[in-house]
């Protein structure tokens, strides 16, 4: 218990030390958005007879008429109070938009990560147990395919086969069938909310919607996870302690799972953390293809129309999540390997 307490304490300290980085990200994104060409006021003043006056109105609305340092000061003050500004694109407060969309992204990404881990770890272990065999090569082939095919292609293919041709999957538009009634929102994760509400039919509908996009995402990240599992499994299978365990005559199963895999999982955890953070932000294409109301597609849309506030809010959110995920990885590390210290 003491070690866990110490780990958490160090994790807390580490979180505090990452605050300056977050602040840097905040200021940097703010400046970057304004340096990039493209004037949101001009873009949004696009009515058939929008003139200079209208552009000015929007500029004032967005606070872009003030000098840059003032804008920055106002923005920092607002962020300090939890106000991330307003999106021109949706007309809503950015904090509200992100709050509504983050659960959708998290639900999708976590499901995808789970599918990926559940398939990648066994694949990696199998490949490591017989390096150079047919199994090893077919795992490699499968992984290469997963990585080579861009997500929007695999997504569209899955839609084509399972929805368009076979009609198994529901129509690929968002998180839930449009005619379904939503459960009371408790977690924002539909599959959990439906369970809490005891609505199994709704749960099934939501799970079916989730399947194809999660699979599309998972296919893409199985490769790095399987490769790293294989590599670290090879190392630990060749290590002294495994040799010792073998010589003592422990069962094969026990050697592979308890000794080798437990040690091999450390780098997998690290990579899984990185993969998770990346997936959350980088899966714009999956969200677009499946009309998934997540944060990534929201940020991309905003970026295209130079809508500053959502992009800044999104980057801040991603940076925060990155920090948190890294902390979680460190803590898990500490639990998996008592020698690792969170320094």
């Amino acid at each position, binding site marked *: 218990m003491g070690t866990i307490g110490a780990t958490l304490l160090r994790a807390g300290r580490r979180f505090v030390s990452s605050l300056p980085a977050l602040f840097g990200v905040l200021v940097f994104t703010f400046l970057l958005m304004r340096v990039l060409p493209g*004037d949101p006021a*001009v873009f949004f003043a696009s*009515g058939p007879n929008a003139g200079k006056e209208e552009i000015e109105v929007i500029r004032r609305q967005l606070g872009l008429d003030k000098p840059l340092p003032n804008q920055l000061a106002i923005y920092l003050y607002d962020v300090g109070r939890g106000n991330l500004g307003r999106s021109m694109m*949706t007309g809503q407060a950015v904090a509200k938009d992100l709050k509504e969309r983050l659960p959708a992204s998290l639900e999708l990404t976590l499901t995808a990560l789970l599918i990926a881990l559940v398939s990648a770890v066994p694949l990696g272990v199998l490949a490591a147990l017989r390096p150079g065999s047919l199994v090893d090569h077919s795992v490699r082939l499968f992984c290469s395919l997963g990585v080579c095919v861009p997500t929007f292609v695999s997504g569209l293919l899955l839609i*084509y086969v399972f929805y368009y041709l076979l009609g198994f999957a529901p129509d690929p538009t968002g998180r839930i069938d*449009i005619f379904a009634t939503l459960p009371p929102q408790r977690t924002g994760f539909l599959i959990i909310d439906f369970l809490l509400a005891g609505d199994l039919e709704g749960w099934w509908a939501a799970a079916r919607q989730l399947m194809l996009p999660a699979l599309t995402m998972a296919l893409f990240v199985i490769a790095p996870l399987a490769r790293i599992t294989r590599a670290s499994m090879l190392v630990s299978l060749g290590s002294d302690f495994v040799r010792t365990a073998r010589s003592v005559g422990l069962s094969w199963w026990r050697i592979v799972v308890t000794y080798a895999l437990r040690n091999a999982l450390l780098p997998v955890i690290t990579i899984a953390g990185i993969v998770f953070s990346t997936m959350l932000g980088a899966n714009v294409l999956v969200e677009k293809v499946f009309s998934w109301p997540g944060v990534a597609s929201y940020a991309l849309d905003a970026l295209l129309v130079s809508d500053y506030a959502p992009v800044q809010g999104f980057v801040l959110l991603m940076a925060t999540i990155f920090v948190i995920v890294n902390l979680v990885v460190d803590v898990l590390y500490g639990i998996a390997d008592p020698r690792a210290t969170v320094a």
Partner: protein
Amino acid sequence: MSFKMSKRSLLAATALLAVSLAAPSAHAQSRAETLRYVTGATVNTLDPNIPGSTREAFALSMSSYDRLVSFGRKQLNGKWVFDLDTITGELAESFQVSPDGLKITFKLRPDAKFQDGSPVTAEDVKWSLDRCVTAPILGKAQLLTGSLTSADQFKVIDPLTFEVTLPKPDKLALPNLATVYPIIINSKLAKSHATADDPWALNWTKENAAGSGAYSVETFKPGEQVIAKRNDAWNRGAPDKPAAFKRLIIQSVPEPATRANLVERGDADLVIDLQASDVQSLEGKGKLKVISTPQYNAVTFISMNNTLPPFDNVNVRRAIAYALPYDDMFKAALFGRGAPLYGATWADGKPPSGSYPIPQPIKLDLDKAKAYLKEAGMPDGFSTTFSFNVGQAATAEPMAALVKEQLGKIGIKVDIQKLPDAQMSTAINEKKLPFFIEGIVAWLPSTDYFYRNFYTGKQRWNYSSTDNAELEKVAQAARFEADKAKYEEEGKELNAIHYDQMFQIPIWQASQDAVMQPTVDGYVYQFTRQVDYRNLSRK
């Protein structure tokens, strides 16, 4: 995590996938009475007046709010389109224009009610129109084009009579009241949400609809969907009948291929923004109804900035006009879906009509193009950039490639620039782009309106930065021309100047391809270039 555990979850996951049965959707609420419309865009406000409103927001507002009057419809080449010249009452039971053309008197329908049940009165009309010309909103610039500029012009005579006074007779005043912006708002309700720094309750109407329209908004999730319910008391469409569909679902589906799948599988009823190639193939399969209407109030241009060298030289512009691969572009970008604006023959070289736009007598003719380049003093050509925006990439990308290839043959080196939408509009606004693809739309497409808005002044819409005294004079004269024959003459004169000076090159009017279930009926091409849900019914 033990291996056994993961094996079990692996099995579970496989089972889930395998069992993914086509269970019928849980709450198939009388699907036939619901219109499910999918779009790549999104509704971002419930008040179309808010700066930054999307076209989908305009479309929704046509159904959630009423205006005093609305446009009729007419047949154009066998397709129903909006008719600018027929104005019918919407909230107005009748209207009268005084003989001198300075006063328009509206009699309101006595049975009209807002969605909360309160009657629509002339007070509401006054407040709504006052707001339109006073508040810093989109309606202001629009109503200006119909000489509606001040609250003093609007007068309540009695609860059901309303009067508009004009400074001079203006044929665009009445049509302007049928456009998107002059919505009639439940003023009592809106006022109760006004604040000192928001006297017109803009922040509230952005998220709440307070109208008397055919549909009332139930859920509004910007970027995802809008669900609206029929207002059974609404009877402004067919006399004494509410709109046909009981529910309306407007859903944002960003991926065009997915939209095509949805409509083909019968999960969506109607979509108007598919890729031309998908429309082509869906039409070929013959299972769906496809109505393609050339957007007769919109024009696509290859534009040149007449103030930037070398495009300040009229002969360079003429050279470009004869060097463009029109037919190839039309096929590659639109699959031939639209109305071309090139390749005409003008007898005796004069414009055959005073409308705008009309097909130009230009076609691909490299010898002519070379001769013009020579005349411009650049026989060996020059280098320039050619820009388009990412949002238009599906059609613009093949066009740009063809332009580059073709102009290369006469020594003009083209560097293609693909710009994010906001960047493109900024560059155009600052008049920085020499040569690019753009388009225009007019809600009230009359010849003088096009020329005044798109060929004069410094605003963004004057893409070619045209500054031509003669053109301006004729266009301004035509603005208040009451005599039809004379107006036609002025239109011809404008078209002649345009062709002679080749400010920019109108290339085509792309089709709006509405793809729908065969049961969907009543589609009309509207001035908003969006669907008016009130027109639709299911056979």
